[in-house]
């Protein structure tokens, strides 16, 4: 490492081995521990988000029933459940797991560094994140219940307690989201700085594994887009608690202002979570296809292009809601243009498989499923980006199914791909492949059975965020109710199969086969150290990089892989 050693780092490394449990696991500055903290917190929040989904899906399939483990769902609770399901899954599951957990774990290991550049800021980032999760959980138990104005929180509904009837819930929700942003801001600064300044000897910019590029581009996107939303959130907070009227049309404010600021962040946010998942897939596929990643530079430039375009498409969320209809044309064009880089990435992944020697281990199954399922999410997006068609589809279940076909592959499939792939490195033991495959099929099949019916319901005009469809004669037809029941039953089945995963994790942690340094015969640097890596990652000697990360099945070599750190 060419970088000067910081006092903070020295302090962190001086503490070797002598720390108590609390210090080691709760107040550690080690990037691996922080990654685990993010991973487990994210997964715990994921369970809460999944439970919410279960409750409101039960209500939709069997309106008015007493939902087991919850009770009867009131309209108020329903709104709160859907709002927080969305917010939790995006802000407290997808982001912490995909960006913070994998970013923290992989960045120093893959670039051959001992830790992040600012380890204490890293720890602070997690602590703020943890507090934000607590604040969010607290918001369900205050008077009036949790916030129920949808995760988009459009004012005046969100700004005025007289409309939302959740005086404290709305504010706590907003505070939690703002804290979460601060946490990721601190994390993002760390990621970018570390990647730029801490690369080991010989690692040029085209030797960086794709997953790191994706996490970095995502972090930059996040940091460049979150400012206006923080501004908007401060204004919303003041409207709620101080008595200003930024969003109140009767007092000189403007409710559309929020949409303007929110979606400026809201759309790049989609790519903020998409890119890391894309990167995880890009790193797993070559390993199990024993094949060089097709057109590394093309993918990199495509990802950068996606990032650039993502700043130009955001108003397509407002086609129906509140923009000048003339501007809709511009945003239709930009939105359809962004299909180009995304399509290109999918093409590249398919091309990577060509001529490979594909092994269908659990991580590879997840990676392949990501591409197959994400394609559905991608193509259905075209219907919504085209302004004329969006008039019909806006805020229907078609939209809902569309973004679940993007977010589920991202947040759930991407996470499972990453966890099953790096589990040996994280904990030093292999996961059980058979259990992994049972879990895989038990997740993927029900997943499709949840959301394909919802596509049909959306196309049949079913709107979102309605807690009981019997109030609408056109939506109360028996065949529609049957589809709702199918979706709900599939969800319950899918959730039940997640137990297999947790069982697998626990059993593998205790009894799993020892992994060794490099069980997958992979090229990147994290596989050159012990599993799990010791404090400081690489011992006394940092690795030197001699080649790009995806040299599999090179004709000059007998082995079908060629680690980055081997001189020849």
């Amino acid at each position, binding site marked *: 490492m060419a970088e000067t050693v910081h006092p903070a780092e020295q302090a962190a490394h001086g503490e070797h081995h002598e720390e108590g449990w609390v210090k080691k696991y709760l107040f550690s500055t080690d990037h691996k521990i922080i990654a685990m903290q993010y991973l487990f917190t994210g997964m715990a929040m994921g369970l809460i988000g999944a439970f919410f989904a279960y409750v409101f899906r039960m209500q939709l399939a069997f309106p008015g029933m007493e939902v087991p483990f919850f009770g009867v769902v009131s309209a108020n609770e329903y709104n709160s459940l859907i709002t927080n399901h969305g917010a939790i899954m995006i802000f407290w599951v997808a982001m912490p797991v995909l960006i913070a957990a994998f970013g923290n774990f992989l960045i120093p290991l893959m670039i051959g560094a001992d830790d992040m550049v600012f380890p204490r800021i890293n720890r602070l980032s997690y602590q703020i994140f943890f507090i934000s999760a607590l604040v969010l959980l607290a918001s369900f138990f205050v008077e009036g219940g949790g916030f129920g104005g949808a995760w988009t929180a459009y004012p005046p509904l969100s700004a005025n307690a007289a409309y939302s009837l959740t005086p404290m819930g709305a504010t706590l929700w907003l505070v939690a989201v703002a804290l979460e942003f601060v946490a990721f801001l601190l994390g993002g600064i760390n990621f970018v700085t570390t990647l730029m300044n801490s690369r080991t000897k010989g690692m040029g910019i085209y030797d960086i594994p794709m997953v790191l590029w994706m996490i970095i581009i995502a972090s930059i996107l996040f940091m*460049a887009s979150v400012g*206006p939303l923080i501004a908007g959130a401060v204004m919303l907070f003041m409207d709620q608690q101080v008595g200003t009227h930024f969003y109140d049309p009767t007092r000189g404010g*403007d409710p559309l202002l929020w949409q*303007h600021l929110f979606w400026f962040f809201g759309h790049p946010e989609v790519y903020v979570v998409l890119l890391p998942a894309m990167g995880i897939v890009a790193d797993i596929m070559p390993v199990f296809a024993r094949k060089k990643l097709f057109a590394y530079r093309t993918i990199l430039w495509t990802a950068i292009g996606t990032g650039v375009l993502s700043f130009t498409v955001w108003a397509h969320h407002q086609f129906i809601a509140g923009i*000048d*209809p003339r501007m809709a044309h511009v945003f239709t064009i930009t939105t359809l243009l962004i299909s180009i880089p995304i399509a290109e990435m999918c093409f590249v992944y398919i091309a990577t498989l060509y001529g490979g020697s594909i092994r269908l281990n659990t991580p590879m199954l997840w990676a392949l499923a990501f591409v197959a399922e994400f394609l559905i999410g991608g193509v259905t997006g075209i219907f919504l980006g085209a302004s004329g068609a969006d008039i019909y589809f806006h805020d229907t279940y078609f939209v809902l199914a569309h973004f679940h076909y993007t977010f589920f592959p991202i947040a759930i499939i991407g996470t499972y791909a990453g966890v099953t792939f790096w589990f040996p490195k994280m904990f030093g033991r292999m996961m059980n492949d058979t259990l992994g495959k049972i879990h895989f099929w038990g997740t993927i099949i029900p997943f499709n059975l949840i959301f394909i019916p919802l596509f049909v319901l959306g196309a049949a005009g079913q709107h979102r965020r309605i807690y009981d469809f019997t109030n609408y004669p056109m939506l109360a037809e028996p065949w529609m109710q049957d589809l709702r029941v199918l979706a709900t039953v599939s969800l319950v089945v899918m959730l039940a199969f997640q137990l297999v995963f947790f069982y697998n994790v626990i059993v593998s942690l205790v009894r799993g086969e020892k992994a060794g340094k490099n069980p997958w015969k992979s090229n990147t640097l994290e596989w050159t150290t012990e599993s799990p890596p010791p404090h400081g990652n690489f011992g006394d000697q940092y690795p030197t990089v001699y080649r790009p990360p995806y040299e599999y099945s090179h004709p000059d070599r007998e082995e079908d892989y060629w680690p980055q750190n081997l001189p020849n």
Partner: protein
Amino acid sequence: MRGRLAALVLVAGTLAPRSSHACAVCFSGADGARVAFLLTTALLTVLPLALLGGFAWWLRRRMRELDSDAREDVPVETPQSR
């Protein structure tokens, strides 16, 4: 072709100031809000790209500079930098 002609007409229609109706941002007679929405949309879109682009450009230039410095200092020892 009809489609292409229509598209042309519509691009013109996009810019024409009077042809808009289902317009949420044109209100209270004042055109100011609509213009402000347009301007700030452009501002928010361009600003991060300009900042990041500028930074990337500066970084690249700086890298080139450092590189040529290195070449002048130790021309023999770094054969791969030509």
